[in-house]
């Protein structure tokens, strides 16, 4: 087994969301670190149960928005104020109120595109990225709990015991080439 070139997982599959929520508590309290849970539909309170930290996407959104504002203002002030000054409607060359609509639009556009880009990168949906599909049934009827062996100190056999005790419907292995 070429350990260095694969990422090895143990998967616990559950067929009921209440069972899954109990299982998450049980598994985490047994000292097993869960990497991710895939479920066919959103489950209330699962973020808290998994102990996820708050997403940093809003911060990225704010920074992208700020970038958009700066870009838009710089562009318009440079173009209409310095590069090619024109009198439009008898206004100043740099007339800020007239620049606001474009600034607003670019702020929204760059904020939105930036967020989508961040989300794509974080979720491994970038071009040429290979998204990891643990079990196709996670889009149908099963909740899939993915446990990465690398980040756990417990042995695979111990993890299997914990999953079995949490009433997992199936326990599978899965490896991904790096």
């Amino acid at each position, binding site marked *: 087994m070429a350990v260095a070139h694969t990422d090895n997982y143990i998967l616990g599959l559950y067929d009921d969301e209440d069972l899954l929520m109990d299982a998450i508590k049980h598994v985490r309290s047994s000292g097993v670190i869960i990497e991710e849970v895939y479920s066919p539909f959103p489950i209330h*309170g699962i973020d808290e149960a998994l102990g996820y930290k708050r997403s940093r996407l809003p911060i990225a959104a704010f920074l992208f928005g700020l970038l958009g504002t700066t870009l838009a203002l710089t562009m318009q002030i440079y173009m209409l104020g310095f590069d090619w000054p024109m009198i439009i409607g008898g206004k*100043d060359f740099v007339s800020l109120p007239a620049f606001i609509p474009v600034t607003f639009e670019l702020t929204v556009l760059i904020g939105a595109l930036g967020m989508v880009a961040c989300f794509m990168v974080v979720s491994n949906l970038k071009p040429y990225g290979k998204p990891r599909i643990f079990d196709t049934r996670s889009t149908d009827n099963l909740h899939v709990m993915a446990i990465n062996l690398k980040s756990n100190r417990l042995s695979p056999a111990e993890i299997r015991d914990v999953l079995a005790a949490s009433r997992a419907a199936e326990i599978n292995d899965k490896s991904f080439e790096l």
Partner: protein
Amino acid sequence: MEHPIHIDERYKFSSGLKKVLGIVLIIGVVLLAGGIIMGVMGVGEHHETSTDAANPLYNLKEASETPFTTQGPTEMSPESGVVEHDAAHGDEAHPRGSGNAAADAATSHAGPTWLTRLYSNFWINNLFFTGLAIAGLFWVAIQYAAQAGWSAGFKRIPLAMASWLPVAAVLMLVTWLIANHDLFHWTHEALYDETSPDYDPIIAGKKGYLNTFFYLARMVVFFAIWIIFFYLIRRESMREDIHGGTSYWYTLRKYSAIFLVLFAVSSSMAAWDWVMSLDPHWFSTLFGWYVFASWWVSAIAAITLIVVLLREAGYLKIVNANHLHDLGKFLFAFSIFWTYLWFSQFLLIYYANIPEESIYYIERLTSDYYSPIFFINLFLNFLFPFLVLMTRDAKRHSIFLKIVCTVVLFGHWLDFYLMVTPAVMKDFGGFGLMEVGLILIYASAFGFVVMSALTKMNLIPKHHPMLQESMHHHI
């Protein structure tokens, strides 16, 4: 649940709060009296000595050279054309300023006095607090029309705010009857008399709409509609408390839908009547929406503030951080909505630069006194709530909400101040003891009416069909 939720909760207007409101009232009266005395003695009034009271600001030639113009060579500027056009127009059409000043002189108003300032303050507070009350009712109606469940637990707070409406109606009517000549230039008879030297063809052309009888009729009808719907909605909501069942909810939804349609028309026309007609030559087509946005965001701030304070006083345990988060989002979103309307009005007038429209901003931007307020207004009502309420944590913690709500409430009072004062007081507006005093008096009276209205009903509509949804609201 950490706190047990008492559905069958009643609010008790504590003597401590009564005392606080009483003290605020007394301070307000003292400050107002101080302001009036200073006004009578002529102390502390704002004067711009360099400005000839009647003329330069309203002289359109000068006005069109002010802020919205280029620094480029004059012959290239379209401005020169505009100036000539005005000059040609000026003689027959009485440009606003000179016509106004002449008429004021003719109708024996020697210029704004402390009394005018007092009236104008009453008018500002009437507008602002009427707005809080009617937008409170609007809030309730929109919850029913949208079939919203999350807000069911604290619907009684905006409903109680609407109980200020009858008081507001009396105050508004009395203020208008006493002060109409001081506040509203168009009420002077001489403007409509073709033989009079003060004849103003523009205002005379609006006589079909702007005349005392029709104006008062509209005021009475609007208040009547609002008060009737307030009583209908309150009555059904109280009956629901006693009997339960879903039939009341359906009736309430029907009343709310009808009210929303009537409110859409009446609020907009009220804004033209009560605010825009202070400048009878000037018009802006989205003014009704602009005033509505100001009322609506102030009402959201007031609702949030009352909910947060009630929670801290041990009531309304049904409201949790998720509800506060949504209220915070409302405040955040509608602050931006107000800014959007503010800017839409400003940009079009700025760009077109037609003197009869741009006079509104020229009055407010070229005055040393009003122009700082103009920017403070934008800061308090846009930048401050926008930056402070942006994060999730700020919306979920009552301390941030309390600060932002207070700032936004004052900010929108200032917005009305900026709509009314330059129109009524010209360059003689001021902000001093009189203003602060009257705000305190109105705020105390408003608080008293709202809080005593809250004691008369269950704090939580206990048989509201969506109460469970509200209790388990989670975002």
